[in-house]
């Protein structure tokens, strides 16, 4: 028993110490926890397997998947709103980054949730985010407009027998991706569990409304405004609610 009494606070301290260098707030009982999941086995990121096919028919692998989520706004049934300016950098390969807490309390009267894949204009300029190596590595260089990469989705694709790389990068204000989620009958469940699960579908990046074709539309999107526009529009549909 004594051991347990000592152990518990120490364990708590260890937990607190874990994620001190992230932007987001630690999960906590009263605030809403967001959990980001993916519709594929994440071990494929490390093993390089061609595990799925794009709408245009190319088998793909994924070697990197990182993006920002920000600018959260909830509309209640009575029309009032609450918002959270928590910014989270999600790295599919970093388990810790996929769960974060918004500084708002979930309510059963929630109707619609809005957020951005990317960053709002006021944060999308060089050095606006906390100075961490992770944020610096997401920088969108000044000669290309400054700010940050909203998304880095990279891997390889098969074109017949041949294999090439693709790098789908999105950045700069016009290509930020607004996402809207109608909670409908799930508001009650979310408010009770205090947790919301958003699942990203990889196929959607290349499917809807634009069938993205690496050969025609480019396998490297950075600085290619028409490629970024297609991806940004597709990006509005990549998340679904999984509660």
């Amino acid at each position, binding site marked *: 028993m004594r051991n347990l009494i000592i152990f518990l606070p120490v364990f708590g301290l260890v937990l607190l110490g874990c994620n001190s*260098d992230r932007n987001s707030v630690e999960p906590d009982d009263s605030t809403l926890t967001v959990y980001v999941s993916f519709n594929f086995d994440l071990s494929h990121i*490390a*093993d*390089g397997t061609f595990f799925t096919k794009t709408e245009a028919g190319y088998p793909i692998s994924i*070697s*990197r998947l990182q993006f920002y989520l920000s600018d959260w706004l909830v509309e209640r049934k009575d029309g009032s709103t609450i918002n959270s300016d928590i910014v989270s950098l999600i790295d599919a390969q970093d388990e810790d980054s996929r769960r974060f807490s918004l500084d708002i309390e979930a309510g059963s009267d929630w109707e619609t949730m809005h957020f951005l894949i990317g960053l709002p204009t006021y944060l999308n300029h060089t*050095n606006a985010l906390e*100075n*961490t*190596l992770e944020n*610096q*590595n997401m*920088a969108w*260089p*000044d*000669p*290309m407009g400054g700010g940050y990469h909203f998304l880095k989705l*990279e*891997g*390889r694709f098969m074109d017949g027998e041949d*294999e*090439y*790389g*693709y*790098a789908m990068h999105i950045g700069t204000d016009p290509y930020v991706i607004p996402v809207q989620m109608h909670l409908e009958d799930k508001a009650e469940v979310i408010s009770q569990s205090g947790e919301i699960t958003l699942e990203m579908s990889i196929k959607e990046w290349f499917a809807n409304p634009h069938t993205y074709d690496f050969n025609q539309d*480019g*396998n*490297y999107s*950075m*600085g290619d405004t028409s490629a970024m526009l297609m991806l940004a529009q597709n990006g509005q549909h990549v998340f679904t609610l999984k509660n």
Partner: protein
Amino acid sequence: MTRQIRAFIIFLTVFVLTLAVSCESENADNFDWPDYDPTPIELEIPGGFPPVIIPPDNPLTKEGINLGRKLYHDKILHIDGLLSCSSCHLQEYGFTSPGTAILPHINLAWSRNFMWDGKFDMINVNLEYVSLFEVEDFMQTNVSRLNEHEHYPGLFYEAFGVKEITSTEIAYALAQFMRTQVSGNSKYDQVLAEGIGTPVFTEQEMWGYELFFSETGDCFHCHGNKLFTDNKFYNIGLDSVFEGVNKGLYSVTGNPADLGKFKVPTLRNAALRNGFMHDGRFKSLREVIEHYNSGVLNSPTLDPVMTKPGKEFGLGLSADEIDALIAFIHTLTDEEFLSREELGPP
């Protein structure tokens, strides 16, 4: 038992006892131990650099850093007394040696991966861990030589409060010193500081900067940020068949997806080098950029950012653009760092 043997045993016992007593008296009892009250030191971080994570059990102290500096430049660490760290890691070249694949010691305080192929297959490797490897496995330091030394026991006591030196304290002192090998005062840094009297880029350097930090040159994806390395591992298409030393991270992880991936080296002070890449295969910056320009080889682990539409084998830069990139990399040379007295031999 014969007399001789008995005599020998007595002799041995006396000898060992004498040894033990003499060591005791020298190193513990009669030794005049100095005070253990190390002075904390705050690492000076150049503008815009991310914060440094310093392990709580090895905070920087004046005594620790000074001791690390002395050890770094002392051949006593080598089993045969032939080499010091600085025999290979030479300050005037950014703590590497020309013509070799010796990794430089530049801003390692921020490093999260060490050695070209990652070597230590674990997360959270830090400078303490790497230094311990250098001391125990590479230099095979004979620790008793330090314990018997005229000055070292006192210096270690002042820094760490220990009366018996072990490889751990040696590694900790080296790690402290290496955290002070900070280079962030190159022309590039001064230009970016944009103060009164700060230098400006020449037209060619500016062009190189723009190429470096845009999709045309596309160097920033891996050598971006203030450190000029993102601290990760990539295959940049040097080979398409991977053997021996060219297997890279694979030789540590055994994961075929890691074949040919190597640590991204910093480009700070890289203009001083004349052996580039993990095997020193290129002899000039021009050869390096020629590789990125037209020598990229495809393979299943080639990094995705290395292939752009219509540019399968590289960037397709003009000769003038290559010159501009080289000029820009020269602005990352930090003369103050290369001659900073506190980093040289004490």
